[in-house]
C-alpha cells in the first residue's frame, strides 16, 4: 500500500516535478555547510570536513543523481524525453513527417474501413439477449425446391405449423419473413421494408420495447383479430418524427389501417445484418391477406428458436432430424411428380447457428471484402516498407549523431527506444488521422455498394472495435517500419561511423542490403496489387461489355401491384390485356410485351423436362419464361429458325415453345430443333405438359450477368438454355407479370409519361416503372467498386514502388559516387555507368517479380469467383502487370542512374566538393527559374545557363569563378568587374582592396541589394570624407579609380563574404533595373561559390596536414633503430618519448667495424614535416659518411654540415652529437655540434662532486653556415662509466606547473642510477620524466641514449 503510494508519487512527480533540482541542491548544500560549521566548532579544518562529507556521499552530483532516481520514474522520464526529442526531430523535417503520417493514415484508414465493414457484416453478434442460444431451423437442399419467395424463404407455412406443434428442443420458436409493404395510399404511397413475425418473435429474442409494447402471442392468434404493428426505432425517428404519441397512432399499410403498439429497441434492426426493417406485422395478417401463403410449395418463412435449458445445438439437431419424416409426410405438396415428392420426403431439418444474424450481404460481399482487406493490407505493408526505407535513410544521415551518442555511452536500448518512440509518434498521429478516414471510407464504400436492388443498412461509427483495430495496426506498423531500422542503426559501430565520410561503404553495405530486401519485398507485394488491379479492371470490362443477347437500351419495365384495387383472378387476363394495349398506345412506345421474367433481374424459373429420346428418367433442366408475342421483337432477340409467337398461340391452342440457341446446342446437339417435343415434369400448379418447339432465337443472358448457375459451362460468353412459352399458355394465369416496353425516343421521358398515365387510373393498383439499362449498371456495383479500388491500389502500389526504388537506387548511386567518378575518369561511358547503376535496380525488380508472380497467383486464386471472363492466373495479365511494374521501376531507377552518370568525374572522385558543385548548381537553377520571369532583353536565363555551363566545365574553382565573372560582365555590359573577397579586415581582389570597416562595406552590410554609385554619389562622399574623415579618402579614390558604378554584396547566411564591383556600362549612363535584378540574382551564386570554396579549402588543408603528419610520424618512427647494438665493451639503451606533434629528434647506433660503434643523437630545429624530412637527410648522410670507419670525426661533422646546408633552407639546422666507441682501446671519441652536452658519469668517483663530465668539444650546429670546422675529443673509459646523451626536450620537459626538469635534476638522477645496467638507467630516466611531466603537454620529443661501459 505504502509502496504503491510511493510509486504513485514518483509517477506524479515525473510529470509534474514537485521538487526541482535547485530545491534538492539547496538541501545538499545546507548539509555540507552544516558539516563545515560543525568541523569549525570542533576546531578541525572545515575544508577537510566538507571534503570528507563530499567523499562519503560520493559527491553532490552523485547524491543528486540518487535523489533524482528516487524522485521520479526514470524510464518514464526517458520516455517523455524521447517523445519530446522525437517531436523535435519530426518537426525539423516536416516533409518526411507529413508524407509518413499521411501515407500511414491512408493505409491504416483503408484497412480499418474494410475491417469495419467486415466486422459489421460478419463479426458482430445480434443485439439480443444470449445470441448463442439462438438457432435456425431449416433443412439442407431446399434451395431451389418449389417456389421460393425471396432470399429468406426456407420453410413453408404448413411446415412452420408442424414444427411449432411438435418440437420440444426449444424454449420458444418464431417464424419471420421479409415483406415488401406499401405505406399510405395513392400518390402518397411509399415502399417500406416490413417483417412478418410470429407472436413470440420479440419475446424469444428477449427484446425490450423502446416505447409502448412489442407483440405477444395473442397478436398472432389464429383468429388474428387486431391489426397491430411495431415500428423500428429508426423508422420512428426518420418517418414518424420520433413523436411520443406514436403508440396508438394509425398507419395505413397495403390500404389497411394498423395501430402502432410500440417501438422496437434502437439497436435492433432486424435479424438480417445490413438490412433494416421499418414495420413488423403479425404473421397471421400476412397469411390471411394472401391466398398463397398457406401453399405447401411456397417456401417463404424462416424459423428460429431459443434452445431450451439443457439443450445444445447438437441435441436440438438430432431432435429435429428425428421429427422430420413425420412433419414432412404431413405436408406433402400436391401436384409434384413422384421423384420430386420423394425428394421432399428426404429432407431433414436441423438446428443451424444464427447468433450473428442472417446476411445476404455477407454472402454477396464477404469474398470481395476479404479480398479488399487483403489488398489494403498489402498497401499498408508496402507503405510500411517504404517508411522503413525512409527511416533507414534518415538514420543513415543521423549515423554520426547516433555514433556520437553510442560513443558517449548511450545504451543501445535507449537508442532503440528513442527511434521507436519517434516511429510511434508518427504511427499514433497516423492512426488518429486514420479514424475519421476509416469512418468516411466505410460510409462511402457502403454508399458505393448500396443500390435499390440491394439496400445496405449498416451503422458506421467509430466504436471500440474499430479503435482497437486501428491501435493494433498502428502498433504493428510501428514495429514494421520503426523497430527494424532502429535495431539496425543501434548496431552501428561508433568508431567506424565517426571516422567514415560519405565515401565509405563499409557500414552502409548492411543497411543497403536491408533496404534492397525491403524494396524487393515491396516489389513483390506491389506485383500482387498490380496483378489484382489488372484482373479486376479486365473482369469489370468483360462484364460491362459482355454480350447480353438483347439490346437493353431504351427498354422500360412496368409492373403493377395490388393496393387493394386489383381485379379478381378470373379477370386478371383481361386486365393484363388492358394494360398491354394501354402501354402500347402511349406515345413513344414502339412495342410492348408481357412477361413473367425480366432478364438479369436475378429471379430464375426452371423446369425439369424430358425429350422424346430420353430413355431413362434422367431429368433435363432449363430456364423457362412465359412471354407475350412481342417479347422477342421488343428485346431485339434475333429469330434464328422457325417462328416466334403470335396472336394464334392461345391457351387452348397447341402448346408451343421457342427455345434459344444454347438450348439447341446443349439439349439437341445442334440438330434441327423445330418440331421436337418437350415434356415438362409436374410441379405444384404446373401439371405435366408437352410442348412443341416452333422456333429458335438467339441466346441471351437470363438471371445474372455471370450466370454462375446457368446450367451450362460457365464462361464469358456462356448463355443458359432458355425455353419460352407463350404467356397465354401459362398454366398459372394469375402469375405476376411485368410489361417490357421499348421506347422510340427518350427512355426517361417515357418512364415518367407511363408512370403519370397509370398512377391516376386506379388508386387500388400501384405502379412502378423503371428503365432497364441503369438497373443493369447497378448489377455491377460490386465489380465496379472492386475494379476501382483494386485499380487505385494498383496505381498506389506502382507509385510506392517508384518512390521506394528511387530512394534506394539514388542512395546506392550516391554511395558509389567515388567509384563512378573513377570509372568515368578511366574512360567509361555515361551509358555504361547508367547501365551499371540500373543493374542494381533490375536485380531488385527481377527478384521482386520472381517472388511476386507466384505470390500473386496464389493470393488471387481465391478471388477467382469474383472474376468474370478471365482466370486468376491469366498469363497475359501477369506478364503485362510485371512489365508495367518493371517499366515503372526502371524509370524510377533510371533517374538517379542518369544523374550519377552526369557527375563531373573529378567532382565525383573528390566527393566533398561535389556537394558544393551540386549546391551551386541548385542555386543556379533556382536563379534561372527566378529570372525566367525577369527581363528577357538581358538574356537573364541564358546568362545563368552560361554561368552554370562554365561552372560545369571548369577545372578549378578559381577558373569557375573567373569564367562566371567574365560571363556576367559581358552580359551586363560592364567595362570591368572586380571580385573582392574578404580576407582579414579588408576585401581584397586581384587589383585593389577596400577596408572591411570602410564606407562601402558599412553601407552594404545593411543593404541587401546591389548598390548603385553615381558619379554624384562618389563626389559627395569625397567631399564629406575630406571634411570629416580624411582616412576614408583612400577607399573612395580606389572606388573612383576603378570607375565603380555598382557594388553587389555577396552574402551567405551570416556574413558578407565578398563584394562584386562593376564599372559602368560602356555606352550608357547606368545599369537598367533588369540588369540590377540580374546582378542581384547572380550574387547568390557567387556568394555560394566563394563560401564553399573557402570552407572546402580550409577542410582540405586541415585534412592534408593531418594526413602528412601521420605519414611523417610513421616515416620518422622507421628511421629510428629497432635493435640496440651489442658489444663486449659496453651496453646500450635508448628511448624516445614522442611529443604531441611530430618533432625532429633522431638517434642511431652504427656499427663501424673493428668493434667500433658509432652513437649519434641529433635534434633538428623546428617541428612538423620539414623537421622530419631534415632528420631523414641527417640519417642518410650520417650513415653514408660514417660507413667509412676511419673518417675523422671533425671531418664527419664538417661533411654533415655541408650536406645539410646544401639540402635545406637556411633557417633550418640541427644540433648533432656523434661519438665513436673503440671497444678495444676503451676510448670514446666524440664531436658535439652545438648539442646539449652529454653527461659522462665516471665510475668509482661517485663520492666526489665533479664526477659528471660534460662532453662539450665540437663546434657549431650543422646546416646553418657553410664551411664550418669542428674539433673532436677523446675520453678514456673505465668499466662502469655511463654516458647519457639527450635532446633538449629532456631537460626542458615541463611539469603541469610549468617548471622545467633541468640539467641538475638530470645529473642527480644519473648519478644515483649509474650503478644500474644501461636499460635500467634508461627506464629510470623515462619513469622520472613521466612522473615529472604527468599530464602536461610537451612540445618537443624527449630522446636520450645511454651507454654503460662494462
Amino acid at each position, binding site marked *: 500500500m505504502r509502496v504503491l503510494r510511493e510509486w504513485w508519487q514518483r509517477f506524479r512527480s515525473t510529470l509534474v516535478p514537485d521538487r526541482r533540482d535547485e530545491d534538492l541542491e539547496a538541501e545538499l548544500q545546507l548539509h555540507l555547510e552544516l558539516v563545515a560549521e560543525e568541523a569549525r566548532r570542533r576546531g578541525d579544518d572545515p575544508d577537510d570536513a566538507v571534503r570528507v562529507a563530499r567523499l562519503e556521499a560520493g559527491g553532490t552530483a552523485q547524491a543528486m543523481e540518487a*535523489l533524482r532516481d528516487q524522485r521520479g520514474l526514470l524510464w518514464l522520464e526517458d520516455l517523455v524525453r524521447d517523445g519530446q526529442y522525437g517531436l523535435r526531430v519530426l518537426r525539423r523535417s516536416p516533409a518526411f513527417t507529413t508524407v509518413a503520417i499521411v501515407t500511414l493514415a491512408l493505409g491504416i484508414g483503408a484497412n480499418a474501413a474494410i475491417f469495419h465493414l467486415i466486422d459489421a457484416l460478419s463479426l458482430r453478434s445480434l443485439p439480443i439477449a444470449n445470441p448463442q442460444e439462438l438457432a435456425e431451423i431449416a433443412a439442407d437442399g431446399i434451395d431451389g425446391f418449389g417456389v421460393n419467395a425471396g432470399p429468406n424463404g426456407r420453410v413453408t407455412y404448413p411446415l412452420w405449423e408442424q414444427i411449432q406443434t411438435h418440437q420440444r428442443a426449444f424454449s420458444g420458436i418464431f417464424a419471420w419473413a421479409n415483406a415488401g409493404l406499401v405505406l399510405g395510399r395513392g400518390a402518397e404511397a411509399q415502399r417500406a421494408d416490413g417483417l412478418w413475425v410470429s407472436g413470440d418473435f420479440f419475446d424469444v429474442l428477449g427484446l425490450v420495447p423502446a416505447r409502448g409494447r412489442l407483440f405477444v402471442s395473442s397478436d398472432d392468434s389464429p383468429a388474428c383479430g387486431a391489426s397491430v404493428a411495431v415500428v423500428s426505432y429508426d423508422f420512428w425517428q426518420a418517418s414518424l418524427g420520433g413523436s411520443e404519441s406514436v403508440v396508438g397512432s394509425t398507419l395505413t399499410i397495403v390500404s389497411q389501417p394498423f395501430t402502432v403498439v410500440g417501438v422496437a429497441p434502437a439497436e435492433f434492426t432486424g435479424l438480417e445484418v445490413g438490412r433494416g426493417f421499418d414495420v413488423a406485422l403479425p404473421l397471421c395478417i400476412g397469411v390471411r391477406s394472401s391466398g398463397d401463403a398457406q401453399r405447401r410449395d411456397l417456401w417463404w418463412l424462416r424459423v428460429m428458436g431459443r434452445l431450451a435449458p439443457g439443450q445444445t445445438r447438437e441435441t436440438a439437431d438430432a431432435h429435429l432430424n428425428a421429427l422430420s419424416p413425420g412433419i414432412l409426410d404431413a405436408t406433402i405438396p400436391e401436384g409434384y411428380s413422384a421423384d420430386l415428392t420423394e425428394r421432399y420426403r428426404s429432407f431433414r431439418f436441423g438446428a443451424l447457428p444464427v447468433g450473428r444474424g442472417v446476411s445476404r450481404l455477407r454472402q454477396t460481399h464477404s469474398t470481395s471484402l476479404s479480398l479488399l482487406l487483403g489488398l489494403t493490407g498489402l498497401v499498408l505493408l508496402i507503405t510500411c516498407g517504404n517508411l522503413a526505407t525512409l527511416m533507414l535513410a534518415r538514420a543513415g544521415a543521423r549515423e554520426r549523431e547516433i555514433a556520437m551518442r553510442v560513443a558517449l555511452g548511450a545504451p543501445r536500448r535507449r537508442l532503440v527506444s528513442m527511434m521507436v518512440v519517434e516511429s510511434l509518434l508518427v504511427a499514433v498521429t497516423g492512426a488518429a488521422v486514420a479514424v475519421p478516414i476509416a469512418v468516411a471510407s466505410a460510409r462511402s464504400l457502403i454508399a458505393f455498394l448500396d443500390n435499390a436492388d440491394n439496400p445496405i443498412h449498416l451503422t458506421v461509427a467509430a466504436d471500440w472495435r474499430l479503435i482497437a483495430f486501428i491501435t493494433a495496426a498502428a502498433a504493428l506498423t510501428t514495429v514494421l517500419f520503426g523497430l527494424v531500422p532502429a535495431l539496425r542503426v543501434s548496431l552501428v559501430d561508433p568508431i567506424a561511423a565517426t571516422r567514415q565520410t560519405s565515401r565509405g561503404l563499409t557500414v552502409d553495405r548492411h543497411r543497403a542490403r536491408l533496404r534492397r530486401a525491403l524494396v524487393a519485398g515491396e516489389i513483390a507485394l506491389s506485383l500482387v496489387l498490380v496483378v489484382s488491379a489488372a484482373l479486376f479492371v479486365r473482369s469489370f470490362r468483360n462484364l460491362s461489355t459482355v454480350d447480353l443477347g438483347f439490346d437493353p437500351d431504351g427498354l422500360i419495365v412496368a409492373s403493377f401491384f395490388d393496393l387493394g384495387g386489383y381485379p379478381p383472378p378470373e379477370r386478371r387476363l383481361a386486365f393484363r390485356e388492358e394494360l398491354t394495349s394501354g402501354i402500347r398506345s402511349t406515345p413513344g412506345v414502339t412495342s410492348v410485351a408481357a412477361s413473367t421474367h425480366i432478364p438479369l433481374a436475378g429471379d430464375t424459373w426452371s423446369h425439369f423436362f424430358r425429350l422424346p429420346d430420353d430413355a431413362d428418367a434422367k431429368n433435363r433442366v432449363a430456364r423457362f419464361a412465359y412471354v407475350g408475342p412481342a417479347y422477342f421483337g421488343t428485346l431485339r432477340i434475333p429469330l434464328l429458325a422457325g417462328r416466334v409467337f403470335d396472336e394464334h398461340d392461345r391457351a387452348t391452342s397447341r402448346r408451343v415453345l421457342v427455345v434459344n440457341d444454347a438450348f439447341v446446342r446443349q439439349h439437341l446437339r445442334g440438330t434441327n430443333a423445330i418440331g421436337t417435343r418437350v415434356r415438362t415434369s409436374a410441379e405444384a400448379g404446373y401439371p405435366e405438359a408437352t410442348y412443341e418447339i416452333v422456333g429458335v432465337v438467339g441466346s441471351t443472358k437470363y438471371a445474372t450477368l455471370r450466370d454462375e448457375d446457368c446450367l451450362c459451362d460457365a464462361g464469358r460468353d456462356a448463355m443458359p438454355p432458355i425455353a419460352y412459352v407463350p404467356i397465354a399458355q401459362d398454366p398459372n394465369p394469375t402469375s405476376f407479370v411485368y410489361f417490357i416496353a421499348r421506347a422510340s425516343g427518350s427512355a426517361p421521358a417515357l418512364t415518367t409519361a407511363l408512370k403519370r398515365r397509370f398512377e391516376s387510373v386506379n388508386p387500388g393498383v400501384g405502379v412502378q416503372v423503371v428503365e432497364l439499362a441503369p438497373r443493369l449498371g447497378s448489377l455491377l456495383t460490386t465489380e465496379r467498386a472492386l475494379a476501382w479500388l483494386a485499380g487505385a491500389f494498383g496505381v498506389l502500389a506502382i507509385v510506392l514502388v517508384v518512390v521506394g526504388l528511387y530512394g534506394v537506387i539514388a542512395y546506392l548511386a550516391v554511395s558509389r559516387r567515388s567509384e563512378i567518378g573513377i570509372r568515368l575518369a578511366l574512360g567509361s561511358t555515361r551509358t555504361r555507368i547508367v547501365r551499371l547503376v540500373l543493374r542494381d535496380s533490375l536485380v531488385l525488380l527481377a527478384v521482386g517479380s520472381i517472388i511476386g508472380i507466384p505470390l500473386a497467383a496464389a493470393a488471387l486464386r481465391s478471388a477467382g469467383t469474383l472474376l468474370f471472363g478471365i482466370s486468376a492466373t491469366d498469363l497475359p495479365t501477369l506478364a503485362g502487370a510485371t512489365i508495367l511494374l518493371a517499366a515503372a521501376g526502371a524509370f524510377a531507377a533510371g533517374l538517379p542512374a542518369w544523374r550519377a552518370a552526369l557527375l563531373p568525374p573529378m567532382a565525383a572522385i573528390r566527393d566533398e566538393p561535389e556537394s558544393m558543385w551540386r549546391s551551386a548548381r541548385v542555386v543556379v537553377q533556382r536563379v534561372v527559374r527566378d529570372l525566367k520571369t525577369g527581363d528577357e532583353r538581358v538574356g537573364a536565363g541564358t546568362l545563368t545557363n552560361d554561368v552554370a555551363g562554365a561552372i560545369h566545365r571548369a577545372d578549378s574553382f578559381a577558373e569557375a569563378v573567373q569564367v562566371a565573372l567574365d560571363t556576367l560582365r559581358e552580359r551586363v555590359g560592364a567595362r570591368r568587374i572586380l571580385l573582392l573577397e574578404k580576407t582579414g579586415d579588408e576585401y581584397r581582389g586581384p587589383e585593389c582592396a577596400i577596408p572591411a570597416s570602410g564606407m562601402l562595406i558599412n553601407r552594404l552590410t545593411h543593404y541587401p541589394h546591389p548598390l548603385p554609385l553615381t558619379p554624384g554619389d562618389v563626389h559627395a562622399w569625397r567631399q564629406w570624407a575630406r571634411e570629416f574623415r580624411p582616412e576614408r579618402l583612400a577607399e573612395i579614390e580606389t572606388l573612383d579609380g576603378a570607375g565603380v558604378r555598382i557594388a553587389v554584396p555577396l552574402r551567405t547566411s551570416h556574413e558578407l563574404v565578398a563584394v562584386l564591383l562593376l564599372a559602368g556600362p560602356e555606352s550608357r549612363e547606368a545599369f537598367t533595373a533588369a540588369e540590377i535584378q540580374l546582378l542581384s540574382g547572380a550574387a547568390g551564386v557567387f556568394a555560394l561559390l566563394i563560401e564553399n570554396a573557402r570552407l572546402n579549402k580550409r577542410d582540405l588543408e586541415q585534412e592534408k596536414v593531418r594526413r602528412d603528419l601521420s605519414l611523417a610520424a610513421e616515416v620518422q618512427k622507421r628511421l629510428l633503430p629497432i635493435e640496440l647494438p651489442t658489444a663486449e665493451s659496453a651496453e646500450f639503451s635508448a628511448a624516445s618519448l614522442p611529443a604531441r606533434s611530430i618533432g625532429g629528434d633522431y638517434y642511431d647506433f652504427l656499427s663501424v667495424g673493428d668493434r667500433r660503434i658509432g652513437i649519434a643523437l641529433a635534434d633538428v630545429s623546428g617541428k612538423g614535416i620539414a623537421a622530419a624530412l631534415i632528420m631523414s637527410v641527417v640519417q642518410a648522410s650520417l650513415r653514408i659518411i660514417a660507413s667509412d670507419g676511419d673518417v675523422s670525426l671533425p671531418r664527419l661533422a664538417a661533411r654533415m654540415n655541408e650536406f645539410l646546408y646544401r639540402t635545406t633552407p637556411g633557417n633550418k639546422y640541427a644540433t648533432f652529437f656523434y661519438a665513436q666507441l673503440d671497444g678495444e682501446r676503451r676510448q670514446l671519441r666524440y664531436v658535439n655540434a652545438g648539442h646539449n652536452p652529454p653527461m659522462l658519469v665516471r665510475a668509482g668517483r661517485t663520492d666526489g662532486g665533479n664526477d659528471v663530465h660534460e662532453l662539450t668539444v665540437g663546434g657549431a650546429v650543422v646546416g646553418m653556415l657553410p664551411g664550418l670546422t669542428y674539433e673532436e675529443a677523446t675520453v678514456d673509459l673505465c668499466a662502469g662509466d655511463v654516458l647519457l646523451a639527450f635532446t633538449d626536450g629532456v631537460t626542458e620537459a615541463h611539469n603541469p606547473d610549468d617548471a622545467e626538469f633541468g640539467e641538475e635534476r638530470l645529473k642527480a638522477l644519473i648519478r644515483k642510477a649509474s650503478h644500474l645496467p644501461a636499460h635500467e638507467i634508461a627506464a629510470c630516466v623515462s619513469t622520472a620524466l613521466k612522473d615529472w611531466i604527468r599530464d602536461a603537454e610537451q612540445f618537443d620529443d624527449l630522446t636520450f641514449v645511454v651507454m654503460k661501459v662494462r
Partner: protein
Amino acid sequence: MVLQTLDTLGPQHGYAIAARLEQVSSGALQVNMGTLYPALMRLEQRALIRGTWGTTEANRKARFYGLTAAGRRQLAKEKRAWEQMAGIIHTLLRGES
C-alpha cells in the same frame, strides 16, 4: 531509525538527522548524503514524513522533516516487529550458548 529520530527530536532537517544518528550510535553509523536524502525522499513519497522549508536556529533556510500520523503508526509497527525479531534472536542465541 530516521522515523525514531524524528519521533524523539521532532521535526528536523537532514543534517541534524544524520548528526543524531551518528551521535546515538556513537559514530558507528555514518550516514552520508547519498543515502540519507534519497531515503528521506522515499519516506516522504510514502507519506510517512512530511518535508517543509523553514529556518534553523542559525537562521538558515532548511528543509525540515516531521513525522506524519501514518509515519508514527509505521514506526510503532516496525518497533514491534523489531522487538519481536530481536526477542527471537536473543532467545535463539541464548538457547544455543
